[in-house]
């Protein structure tokens, strides 16, 4: 990659978020050994964050500080980053994680600095970037046509970079001025739907839109009753339909689970769902579509219609087959 390479670290509660270390691996995948680490916060927290980055990565860190950055908002980030990158060399890759925050500010940042923006990047080609399209069935190879490129990178596509550096990188704190914002942050609210039963279960039988109707929840309930320490999981689609309540939702905006067995019934395998269950011991998927993305994370795949297959499976088991 030509030009400079910047990684915008994301943080929460005074600590750098784990996805950031994966962005360092992404930089290496791009052939960049010395990206500049960047972090944005208020004066009270910036030094600790910048030091954590410098020690963990051994890379140079630019910390942008201002009281408007005490709490995250897209507006605070954009109004700090746009002037910074306007002054930086034109040829630059600016990378952050594809998380709820990364995707909140990255497109607007790109618009402010006349950059190309590519989201959910999971690999690199010959000077190109690769992302999943069409429900994860295919990938698109995308070429940037501007010298400045803003990328959001899928964290799970890269392992955390664990190279223990010899020396910490240099830290430079840049005052970003005090910008008065029209957005007012009012703090955070804890999730309303934690489900302890799911995190303790050894087996999770999980339902997707492929169930077809709320009535068919009885199929997954029946299947789950065969296993002693089991619980019912669901995709967001199932919860949005009201077939199960949100405490059952598994995925990036729901519960994260890693049971010994995850039985995915009628689930396509969207990245947001995989984010919550990909570390399960054994994944079994039942889906009518042999090309569904779920089969690429499954240990065992069964191409069948769940409305006939689940009753058959339960019947064969109860008969002692």
């Amino acid at each position: 990659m030509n030009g400079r390479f910047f990684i915008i670290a994301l943080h929460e509660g005074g600590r750098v978020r784990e996805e950031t270390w994966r962005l360092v691996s992404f930089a290496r995948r791009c052939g960049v050994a010395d990206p500049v680490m960047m972090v944005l916060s208020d004066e009270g927290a910036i030094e600790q964050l910048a030091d954590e980055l410098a020690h963990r990565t051994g890379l140079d860190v630019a910390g942008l500080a201002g009281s408007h950055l005490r709490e995250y908002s897209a507006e605070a980030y954009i109004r700090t980053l746009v002037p910074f990158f306007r002054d930086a060399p034109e040829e630059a890759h600016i990378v952050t994680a594809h998380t709820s925050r990364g995707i909140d500010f990255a497109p607007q940042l790109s618009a402010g600095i006349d950059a190309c923006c590519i989201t959910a990047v999971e690999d690199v080609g010959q000077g190109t970037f690769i992302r999943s399209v069409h429900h994860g069935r295919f990938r698109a190879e995308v070429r940037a046509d501007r010298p400045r490129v803003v990328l959001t990178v899928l964290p799970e596509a890269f392992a955390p970079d664990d190279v223990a550096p010899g020396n910490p990188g240099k830290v430079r704190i840049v005052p970003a001025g005090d910008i008065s914002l029209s957005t007012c942050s009012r703090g955070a609210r804890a999730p309303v739907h934690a489900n302890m039963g799911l995190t303790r279960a050894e087996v999770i039988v999980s339902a997707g839109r492929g169930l077809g109707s709320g009535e068919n929840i009885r199929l997954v309930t029946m299947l789950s009753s065969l296993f002693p320490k089991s619980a019912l999981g669901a995709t967001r689609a199932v919860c949005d339909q009201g077939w199960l309540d949100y405490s059952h939702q598994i995925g990036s905006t729901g519960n994260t689970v890693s049971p010994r067995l995850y039985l995915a019934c009628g689930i396509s395998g969207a990245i947001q769902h995989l984010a919550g269950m990909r570390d399960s011991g054994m994944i079994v998927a039942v889906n009518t579509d042999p090309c569904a993305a779920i089969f690429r994370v499954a240990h065992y795949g069964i191409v069948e219609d769940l409305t006939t297959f689940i009753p058959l499976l339960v019947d064969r088991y109860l008969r002692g087959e």
Partner: protein
Amino acid sequence: MKILVCIKEVYDSPETLVFDESAGRVTFGPHTVFRMNRYDEYALEEALRIRERLSSAVVDAISVGSPRVSRIIRRALEMGANHGIHVQTPGETCLSAFERAHLIASAARGRGYDLVLAGVMAEDDMESQVGPLLAAVLEYGCATGVIFEEISADGGRVAVEREVEGGSRECLTLALPCVLTIQSGINTPRYPALSHVLRARSSELECIEASGLAAPPPTQGLVRILPPAQGRQGEVIEGAAVEKADKLIRILREHSLLPR
């Protein structure tokens, strides 16, 4: 209060797509069925609920695409939108999020929208870019992943909750005008009422040729479509349905996952 809702047409099932690997292209097969992006149904429903709360509000729906997308715009009118705008592109042109955002901005500029709602992402390509890019071009504020909104009594501000990892929510207040991208589950989208269906049948859509709107040169190009990455080389259990069931039971027993 003038509200604009951005709606995108998507295909109903990816199974109907046809992949030409040597050309690096995907096309729609003969059985492809099209519908409105689900996240946009939530956005439209939210706009209609705001209109019900603030009696003077009007809701416009806009879509950029081939002549075929007029059908989802009509669907928006059936659900209750007041007016439909079609930014028409010739045939199956595949436009980047940047181009789509600029076309919507050109069509929207000067119409005095106080609030623009979009889906949090398009189900097919999952870019999550058009809403925030549109906000940047229009110089509006923006919040993404909105799961709750409440407009202040004076119509000057909107309090929102954005859904983030693990289902936590970030609470913030934005000044209007702004763009909100709407997350699924914020409401339950309605089915069209008969009276609206009848009205929609006789309504004219406003059709604007995309070629007549100003847009800067694209920032990116699609090189080609590739097959999916090799995932885990899992075992596909073959055989008749009964054999598959028996094999699975055996495997689960071998791993002590099912009692004998």
